[in-house]
């Protein structure tokens, strides 16, 4: 299976993960500062900043795009409960 790495920049932890992993599946376990509310792409609590490897995540859905806009999220922000790793290296931190 294709491997990828996700670095949580706020705590300096890098995790090697299989493609398809969602950020939410690992960020809490490593204790990164990204936090969650609804866990299903509705509330915007989990907005994170993608500092590296933006293209290595799945495209945001229409609904995710709306939640991001409603929360004034910047260009390189995503919902950690939605974004899935495609491959390569990614670095994220709390928004």
């Amino acid at each position, binding site marked *: 299976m294709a491997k990828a*790495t996700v670095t949580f920049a706020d*705590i*300096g*932890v*890098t*995790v*090697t*993960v*299989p493609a398809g*992993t969602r950020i939410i*599946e*690992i960020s*809490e*376990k*490593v*204790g*990164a*500062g990204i*936090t*969650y*509310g609804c866990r299903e792409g*509705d*509330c915007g*609590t989990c907005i994170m900043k993608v500092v590296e490897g933006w293209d290595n995540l799945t495209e945001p859905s229409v609904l995710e795009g709306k939640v991001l806009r*409603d929360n004034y999220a910047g260009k390189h922000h995503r919902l950690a409960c939605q974004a899935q790793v495609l491959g390569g290296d990614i670095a994220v931190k*709390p928004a």
Partner: protein
Amino acid sequence: MSPKAVEHAIADRRPIEISPRVHWIGALDPDIRTFDVILKTANGTSYNAYVVRGSEGVAIVDTVKEEFADDFFARLEAVAAYDEIRAIVINHLEPDHTGALPELMQRAPQARLYISFQAQLMLKALLKRENLEFTPVDTGDRIDLGDRSLEFLHTPYLHWPDTQCTYLREEEILFSGDVFGCHFCDPRLFNDTCGDFRFSFEYYYAHIMRPFREYVLRALALIEPLPLQVIAPAHGPILRDRPTAYVGRYRELAAPRLKREIFPGEKTLLIFYISSYGNTARMAEAIYAAAQEIEGVRASLYDLTGGETNSFADLLEEADGLVLGSPTINGDAVKPIWDLLSSLTVIDMKGKLGAAFGSFGWSGEAVRMIEDRLRGLKLRVPLQGVRVKLIPTPEEIEECRQFGRALGEELMGRRANRVIDMSELLSSNA
């Protein structure tokens, strides 16, 4: 209007003049004692709604709880005809302010509904109506009523995602929604003529606004520059006497309280424990002493049996990290720990460092349960807590010391970068 005249007019279901163009058309609810499950009120509350008349049309700001709709419509009809209404502004979708909205929209079908853009997703779930037409608004948007106009301030999370304030610039009146409100029912209606409501004002802030302190500060940045003659909130007295004093009070309440006592660069770690035979207490002391050795860490140790849970909330609001120690009793952490954790719902703990530890006899569920709860409260829990079977050995005390040092380093952001495989994460959390 004298206070007595106001009282009589309210009893007669008449509107109350705030200025020649602005009237109160809300309702009093003197009998309610519990609000939103979590709030108490000793003398009821009010649902404030307002009418603004411009040379080119009338706007309604908020409505009332459904059971008080008759009061609202009677007062409204005394100042405006339904076909004059051009705009309906809802500052907050909660049913105490939208109860009469569906009926109002029927009676004034030509009126446009203005809500915060963050209200859109909730509107349908709340009003149970399809194809509702509305205009979503944001800071800077405004409605023109001829010689009067309404401007919107996007003030989310005070206390719902959709909350906003509406400003009538020509008269310097801020319709602030739940912000600056309180559950206090007084038929004299205005802050300079009603009874002493300071307690209610503070209590409302502490329970409704305090969890959103960061958002309070952002809202104040929008509100403070505005000239203010009157603050017209959605509950409690209308603040026409020294309205800016209430803005100032919010600023004080939202400002960090202990920051002055902490040196720059220092971080605070609070360790709370409870212990029946002293085993968890010994662990706590070891963690405390070791964390304290890390430069920049200001650690404090508290035995939960010696304090009132509520008085710890102020400390926790300012702290950078929270560590909880509990024995496992009947398969659970003990009640004072849960009480402390449930008191955290009124303060903003998002992203703070959290950790747990404890002694146990045979099953030891408490530590992992506390860690899960800390995550649920949006703290980050990077280090798996130490669990010790019964009396800690010298080796186990050393393990606690290592845990304390690691927590201190984590707090100061000095932990070395690590690379781990996802499979390790999955297995280590068993």
